């Protein structure tokens, strides 16, 4: 993915040769050899339009002829001799809520899984430390190999020499003991009647415990039972699609306006002659809340050692729905 952006069939076809080269570096007789993308990039440089132009003119190749020093050094994940004019380090704290809400709206399970994705473009060999306001929140963590584990054990501080570019610094789990605030609620009224071939369908989504932030990018999907032929629905906002083949209903709600809650109402037409489905479909929810880490995790400070310049630092928080299900 680092090479081509997206991994599609067309992409692989177009770059057969590069794929071959990369695979050759990655595997030796079926055994993994080098899988760190930073190193691979140095061995075989990813194809870009610019490089193609340069290569045709100068006749150089996109195969590195030197063993990347990183491979042999203590920090195999970082390339040497990185240079940037703008030195910047961005961290995204992204939390996902996995939850199962039951029919009556009470939470069956809810847990928060978070990650900190970083985009570090810093010159030289910077040594960063990241500290949290409330590190105790983090229950179970897994690190990028660059993080010094001992330091975390003793001081709860992330200390690391970052790889170059985008990488996942840390993923964590917020202990289940803490009650997880569920930021949205779904009111639903779905019923199929035995006698008629029509059912009623009504969903309303509303915000709950969002700490003043708006809930964006709301998307409701639901797998309808096989007996459903079609649905005639009218949303109060956003667009909806029902695919009669896969029986998948999806409703792109967008932003939730607390004054005017979005709803989707209508009727469901069932296949005539079949008995009504014995289970109502579950509703899967997706949403985003910017500038909020639902667990309350906060980065205290980021410091850099080892290099002289002053980097530009930025931290962004986001809460997303992970596997968020509402049973109906």
């Amino acid at each position, binding site marked *: 993915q680092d090479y081509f952006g997206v991994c599609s*069939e067309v992409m*692989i*076809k177009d770059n*057969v*040769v590069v794929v*071959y*080269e990369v*695979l*050759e570096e990655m*595997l*030796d*007789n*079926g*055994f*993994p*050899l080098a*899988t760190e993308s930073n190193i691979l990039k140095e*061995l075989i440089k990813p194809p870009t339009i610019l490089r193609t132009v340069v290569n*045709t003119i100068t*006749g150089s*190749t*996109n*195969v*590195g*002829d*030197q*063993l990347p020093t990183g*491979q*042999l*050094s*203590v920090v*195999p994940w970082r390339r040497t001799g990185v240079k940037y004019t703008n030195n910047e380090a961005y961290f995204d704290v992204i939390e996902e809520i996995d939850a*199962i809400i*039951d029919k009556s709206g009470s939470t*069956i*399970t809810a*847990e928060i*899984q978070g990650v900190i994705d970083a985009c570090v473009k810093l010159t030289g060999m910077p040594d960063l430390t990241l500290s949290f306001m409330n590190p105790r929140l983090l229950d*179970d*963590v*897994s*690190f*990028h*190999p660059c993080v010094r*584990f001992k330091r975390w054990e003793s001081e709860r501080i992330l200390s690391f020499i970052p790889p170059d570019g985008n990488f*996942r610094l840390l*993923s964590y*789990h917020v202990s*289940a003991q803490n009650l997880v605030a569920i930021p949205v609620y779904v009111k639903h009224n779905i019923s199929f009647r035995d006698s008629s071939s029509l059912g009623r369908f009504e969903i309303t989504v509303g915000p709950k415990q969002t700490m003043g932030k708006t809930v964006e990018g709301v998307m409701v999907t639901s*797998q309808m039972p*096989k007996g459903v032929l079609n649905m005639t629905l009218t949303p109060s906002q956003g667009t909806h699609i029902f695919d009669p083949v896969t029986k998948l209903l999806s409703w792109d709600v967008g932003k939730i306006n607390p004054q005017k809650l979005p709803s989707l109402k209508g009727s469901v037409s069932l296949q005539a002659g079949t*008995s009504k*489905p*014995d*289970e109502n*479909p*579950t509703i*899967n929810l997706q949403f985003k809340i910017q500038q909020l880490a639902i667990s309350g995790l906060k980065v205290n400070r980021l410091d850099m050692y080892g290099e002289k310049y002053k980097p530009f630092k930025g931290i962004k928080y986001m809460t997303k729905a992970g*596997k968020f299900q509402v*049973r109906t």
Partner: protein
Amino acid sequence: MSGNGLGYGEQGGEAAPELAQEPAPSMTPVTPAAFGLFSSDTKKNEDLKQMLESSKDSAKLDAMKRIVGMIAKGKNASELFPAVVKNVASKNIEIKKLVYVYLMRYAEEQQDLALLSISTFQRALKDPNQLIRASALRVLSSIRVPIIVPIMMLAIKEASSDLSPYVRKNAAHAIQKLYSLDPEQKEMLIEVIEKLLKDRSTLVAGSVVMAFEEVCPDRIDLIHKNYRKLCNLLVDVEEWGQVVIIHMLTRYARTQFVSPWKDDEVVEEYSEKNFYESDEDQKEKDQKVKNTYTMDPDHRLLLRNTKPLLQSRNAAVVMAVGQLYWHLAPKSEAGIVSKSLVRLLRSNREVQYIVLQNIATMSIQRKGMFEPYLKSFYVRSTDPTMIKTLKLEILTNLANEANISTLLREFQTYVKSQDKQFAAATIQAIGRCATNITEVTDTCLNGLVCLLSNRDEIVVAESVVVIKKLLQTQPAHHGEIIKHMAKLLDNITVPVARASILWLIGEYCERVPKIAPDVLRKTAKSFTNEDDLVKLQILNLGAKLYLTNSKQTKLLTQYVLNLGKYDQSYDIRDRARFIRQLIVPNEKSGALSKYAKKIFLAQKPAPLLESPFKDRDHFQLGTLSHTLNSRATGYLELSNWPEVAPDPSVRNVDVAESAKEWTGIKTKKEKPTEKFYSESEEEEDESASSSTSESKSSSESEKEDKEERSSDESSGSSSSSEESSDSESDSKESTAKKISRAAAESDSEEVKKKVKGICKKRSTSSSSDTESASSEESSSDSKSDSDSKSDSDSGKLRRATSSKKEEKPIQDRKAPNKQDVFLLDLDDFCPVTTPVAVPTSAILSPSLTADLEGLSLLSSSVIDVTTQVSVPTKTHELLHRMSGKGLAAHYHFSRQLGIFGDRMVSVQVTVTNTTDRKIEDIRIGEKKLPPGMRMHEFNPIECLEPAGSITVSMGIDFCDSTQMASFQLCTKDDNFNVNIQPPVGELLLPVTMSEKDFKKEQGMLTGMNETSATIAVAPQNSTRLVIIERVVNAANLGVVPSGQDNIHRFAAKTVHSGSLMLVTVELKESSTAQLIINTEKTVIGSVLLRELKPVLSQG
């Protein structure tokens, strides 16, 4: 990437070509006409050939790209083989790579032609670029042509002692490939593996263990000496290597340690803290608690070192650690893995599947581990069915009295699931919960009965089956349920369910005397339309009723039996006849019919509802075999714990402990020690030892002109490094030497005892050199972070070995204190010590005598050490043998006073011939020196024999700068560019002066001329002797006697300009020190300050 890696060890194979060939059919270009396909292909090949033969790299590259494209499309490009092979020697690295790809694909088909390329690889194996060396080895070993096996073997051997760890890593990979090509080579390969196992590079460790697992997984004895090293390095090894090593160590530990599970009350003697204490302490403890179980420290080490890996981002690593804890850790500790395993459930479904399977197995045996995470296993409607059923399995395993009510509520939702297969599995799960937990059996049964009214047939059928099983386990009064089910019989069509109901009615026909005959009547009517399974049960039911209630059912049964007699299925015909004979009394009826009732209505044992994962626990978790629940090829059985632990001392060799003990126990462990030092780092060791000892000897010969001895010395030089660890096996040495060594030996024994005595105060007593030498070694041994860097690694090794060498003379020199008789012999034996740093010792001794008086023999040996230390032991590489086409050169600074003139720094260069032919006329060629710099060349060496080495001296005037002196080292045929860069400490000459003079000079060099810094001093560095030793070792300084205990002064002048350089180390409170340097040459002063800082602060 992490996903499919869980079991890659087993799958092996050629992922690359497969992957590339997959899209092949869809990609075949549409040729205009079918008949034109062939001709156009050959034509295309023609022009490809032309392109390959063209002189332009770009054309070749283009052609190669198209060829590789053809391979990817699945077309045969083998006819281009000759044209392609020609390009293997191409300079362009991309062409080369593509040719390699091509070769790997077709070499096996065209063996003869492939041989043409071999010589190119052989040449490439000697390339100075390590990347090219590595890839040449990789391709060479991938060419599966049996004829070249010897060449491959040779290449692997060569590469396994390559300087670059990357090449060594590839050598380890090549071992497996060669083994699969020709298993005959096993013995030789094991040798190489043994050698590579001793490698300290983290890069190599993973690959070599992989090779070990592949080639000789049963040779556990090879691991012993490397066990602790592997444990310590584990964290720094790359991820895939970690997986392999963990699996290997799991097996190892199962054979080497006693089970921690034997006692329920495992005495956890060792808290985390204890482990940082010295091994001796532990041994004492071992004695104390011998009665109860204590874990072997090595066992503990493994557990401790793998624990951080649970935090790895790689699922395979976490899983490997998980299984390690499961198989090795005491029961109380295994729980820590559950949290991490649960975390893995967040990743993609393949990983989930494997992890859940393993959790399922674990949860059967130890419920407690995963109980807190019960809710994590709740099923989501979006999960694929395989995940759902596994989760269900785990939930069932975890069910207990406390959580059953929540679980059952959860199950209720599942039963309604649209996924019917899953719903059925849920019903089974409910059934299992009901049997396992007696409290809820009734509730479950009621729930299941409710399900009987479900509209979905599969659900109902499944419930019937489960209810049947449940009723069987509880043959109480469930008449109602049976009645209800009898009613259901009209509606249910699923054969299994119908059969179950019939069986139930038959079994408990006495409880439902009215219904049973009626049911039989109904079924008899529909007999012909029933499924075989149901027919059999109808027959059964008839038989049972006949026996219990023959009045009502006699005719009915006979009717049914008659129906059965003429059925299509022979099974049913057979059964019908059998039953008839058994139950219907007639004249021929045998003895059996008397017992018919007993036979049919015997109490049947209730079926046991078991988890399908029950029988999996004999497979090692996380293996392919465990996933498949059958033995896969290459599966290695995890052995049971041994009753008695094998001798733990086999692992002792390469740890700090052994380094400390080496003097004392060397008779015992002579062999391993020797091997360890001499074999694995043979090269470095040899070159280092030869350069130092020889240079010493040669300088000796200059001064004292005793040619005899010098030749003697140099001939024994290579063995002298081994001598230090191996005292007896030396037959070459003269008897006098032997005696002296024996004396030294006894002394060293004494020293050793003292070391042991004060070993608790290890940090403070490090003033003794034996101690510091060993601690230096242990630091290189056990500090994995310092090891991981290859260059510093070899440097350290060299230092470690050379410091070991120092030790020998130290002990020898100590001998005269007691036994003057041997003085002469000793001189003979270690003349190397005499010429060095005499002025320093002269100054040192008077000032130190006071200090010494209180000290024991142990520390009196230290004085000599400090004088000794000023021999610069570090050698630097001038020319590597790879880049020098077999000619290797090392240099070091001998710190001799101007042999070539006052302003020259003398440098000793050792040239070694590693080729198998003579190298002639070695001399210095063109010099590229910065302005002002001068150089005094050494005398040209006329001829250097194969494997011979010669040390020569040269002088360089560096003009008090640390700029490099670049020059050419020439042989008859070649010129090599080399350069020497002096450390700032070597640009000085020690000066003797009194404390008063020192202060006077210092007073004149203040202000601009003074640089100072405050540094943290490691506690073991705070004694006088250590400071002096360390500072003098780092820079060529003379010691100035000091009146104060906490101030240490050193003086020197620069070689070129003769400016004074005054260094003061003033110890302060709380282990800090003020380091002051006064000099006119402020630049050098500040550089020196920078270099001295780490010297004192390092532990």
